[in-house]
């Protein structure tokens, strides 16, 4: 059904417009009332002391805040943005992608002089949110934060109707490398020792993943294939379940990323290594696989690093070049701004892995991910067919 939607058709279809109008109406009607009520708290709240997070970024937002949709005429005339910009997050509220998006938007809001409304469309391994971004009108009021390699996985392993060139890229946000972790107190302290353990214990060994397709599954499949191991892969669906399984000792090892796992948990788990050539800075005591001498293993970077990136539906650059340029320039500025860096630092050291790349580089990283995921498609197909 969704394949009927041909994105090369340059006319934004009436259906799309209707859908987004409906959505905005709903948003307006549900939030407007609350905004009005909360507005009175906002007036005094901004200046209230005892701000334990030391967040300077929010204060400046006071003028534009209060309601996310009430100030459509604030910039007047043809000024962009004249209404809130929707940021689609293809994960639910509270996940890593959502949190890193929400950490950025208050600062981006100040830089661009308008508001952002984060909307979560979770499910379908990011395909539901992906379709939402793809079908949005490319008028500068729709952007999205996605992650790699989940994005290409939705069309390589699922039936998503869009491709990499169906989007205009704004920039990358951060890069979180693939990390293997074990519960505290196990007999193995690094990846070499774990491989030895896995060899001895065969199919009794369990390895937790964050999703069926993605960087964690790719890393686990490569390790399993390269060293001809028997361990059982268990998809735990999401970072917080992995965290729980490690803290409770439900799995023998799990694959995640250091920031997603939250460095505050460092003392409660053993980092076995990262599936990268270079070591990372968030959990400095954990070596990279290359440093551990795992030279037989392929290192298909960037697919073994979870990148997050900001993008827009394609057609924006062509139809509204000025708006696209504004988005790109203000995104970069917000990424570099101190209030954002400070907030990111408070978010368990997100600032350590922030990595901005301009649009062309961002697109290149996406395309490299597509190539790598296609290259290892047979490995995934075998896993997904249940063998």
């Amino acid at each position: 059904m969704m394949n009927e939607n041909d994105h090369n058709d340059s006319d934004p279809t009436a259906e799309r417009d209707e859908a987004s109008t409906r959505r905005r109406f709903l948003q307006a009607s549900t939030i407007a009332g609350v905004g009005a009520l909360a507005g009175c708290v906002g007036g005094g709240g901004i200046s209230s002391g005892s701000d334990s997070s030391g967040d300077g970024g929010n204060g400046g937002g006071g003028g534009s805040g209060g309601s996310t949709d009430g100030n459509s005429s604030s910039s007047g005339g043809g000024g962009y943005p004249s209404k809130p910009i929707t940021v689609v997050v293809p994960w639910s509220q509270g996940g890593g992608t959502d949190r890193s998006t929400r950490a950025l938007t208050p600062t981006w809001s100040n830089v661009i002089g308008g508001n952002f409304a984060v909307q979560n469309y979770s499910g379908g391994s990011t395909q539901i949110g992906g379709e939402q971004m793809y079908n949005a009108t490319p008028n500068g009021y729709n952007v999205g934060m996605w992650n790699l390699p989940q994005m290409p996985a939705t069309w390589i392993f699922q039936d998503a109707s869009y491709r990499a060139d169906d989007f205009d890229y704004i920039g990358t946000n951060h890069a979180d490398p693939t990390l293997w972790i074990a519960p505290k107190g196990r007999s193995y302290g690094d990846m070499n020792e774990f491989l030895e353990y896995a060899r001895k214990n065969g199919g009794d060994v369990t390895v937790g993943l964050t999703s069926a397709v993605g960087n964690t599954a790719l890393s686990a499949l490569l390790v399993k294939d390269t060293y001809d191991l028997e361990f059982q892969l268990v998809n735990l669906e999401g970072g917080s379940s992995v965290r729980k399984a490690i803290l409770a000792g439900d799995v023998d090892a799990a694959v995640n990323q250091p920031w997603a796992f939250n460095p505050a948990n460092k003392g409660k788990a053993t980092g076995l290594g990262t599936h990268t050539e270079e070591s990372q800075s968030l959990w400095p005591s954990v070596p990279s696989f290359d440093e551990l001498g795992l030279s037989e293993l392929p290192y298909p970077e960037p697919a073994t690093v979870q990148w997050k990136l900001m993008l827009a539906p394609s057609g924006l650059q062509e139809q509204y070049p000025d708006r696209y340029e504004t988005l790109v320039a203000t995104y970069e500025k917000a990424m570099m701004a101190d209030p954002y860096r400070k907030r990111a630092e408070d978010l368990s050291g997100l600032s350590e892995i922030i990595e901005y790349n301009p649009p062309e580089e961002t697109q290149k990283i996406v395309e490299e991910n597509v190539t790598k995921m296609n290259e290892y498609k047979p490995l995934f197909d075998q896993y997904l067919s249940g063998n």
Partner: protein
Amino acid sequence: MIDASLPLLIDLVRSVAPDPSMPVAFVSGVMSEGLGVLFQPIVLLAVVLGTALGIVFGAIPGFSATMTLILLTPVTIPLSPVVALILLVSAYGGAVYGGSIPAILINTPGAPGSVVTCWDGYELTRQGRAVYALAVSALVSGIAGLIAASTLLLAAPFIAEFALSFGGPELFLLSAFALTIIPAAKDASLTKGLLAGAFGLLIGTVGNDPQLARPRATFGLTILRDGFDYIVVLIGLFVFTEMIRLAMRGSMVNTGGEGATGAGGYAQTIEGIRDVLARPVDFLRATAIGTLVGSLPGAGADVANFVSYNEAQRWASEEVADRYGTGIIEGVIAADASNNATQGGALIPTLTLGIPGSGSTAALLGALAIHGIQPGPGIFQRSGPLVYAMIFSLFLGNALILVYGLSGSRYFGKVAYVPIRYIIPGVVILAVVGALAVRNAPFDILVMFAAGLLGLVFLKYDYPLVSPVLGVILGSIAETGFIQGWLLNQQDPIAFLTNSAVSVGLLVLIVLSLAITFVKNYR
């Protein structure tokens, strides 16, 4: 794990050295700083406003506590972190309570956590005792919330440990245990209850499978990769169906009701308070179940109210057990003490481990990120005053639920006498908005109407409406728990079922529950 919230205990120990002349000195260091934060006028206003907003939102069909938090989060961006987070936490508690008001008054639960509130609460309304039911609901909600908040303050490390002990097999067994309520559903034959439950479980399998993300019964629709949302199904089956049934019946209150309303006013409120005080065991059992179930990742008020009602009925003497569902106070206590206690419980793993204990606390994590607060180990060192202020605000918020609920019950109760020509269109509009708001998918409006029509068929042929909803809510928790536990236990059934003491305990409860049901049915 224990040191996750050690500061709580350290502060508690320190506070044992009191200075009687200054009450504030009972609490020391970070805790008193937290109290200081809470007692700023603007923060107090956030509690008052947040709780009220939560109650109003929670009362709207489909606007669960989770939805309320998601809708309010963007509004709090310009506020300072303290004001914003306390507003949200207060709204969360208010919303859980608010869901019970329409359940009692018009038999439409405002959220999944209030489904079983309908069973006895609405029966009381039909008997002209709405004010009484509302007073009981407010009282047990508020006090259960206070007890759960105390648990969060005093026993967080232990509860967090308990939550961690719940892995895949335990969650599967808990869901199976909750499903044993099906035969207990009021006015239902066992066969029809089980058939309808199986139908719900089947509906719950639509969407990507939880292990390899392969689509099942999605018919090429991307939205169905995420399955049917249980809140949308709930709105259709309970709210839309009930409005049609109401239209056919013509009025809400059974008897002319004048005599009954005459006895209203505060007399019913006071009677409600007295009757709750006379049943401390029922109340405490429901509160404990709510706190513990709330702390489990993946299970919140939606699961707690079923488990609690089921247990209440099981523990009751035979003649009382038979009267569940006919409008008895024990039913309302079981439902409403448990659902409000989940908040304090759910915040425990969320704050100390960074693992959300429910959908609502997962939404809260997003709001915490905006305000630069990172939950998990060390949160009391990083953001101690704010977190303590948040915990203390729960006490205030739940006290406010008592105040709003008890003083408002006689006014809310009048809703039962509003002409249905206003009630029905109003509620149907809210149901449509609620269904659309859950995930911004117009498709869900169709699902809501389809579920509503299906509900009419169910009613016509005497199938219990709650069974399919239970199936949809518990199905995905059970399936995910099963497949993960199965793989983690080498695909061995014995290892799966006996992997922990908790599993064995749940297994015993399930067997007992089924045995009792069969004995009762064959006598």
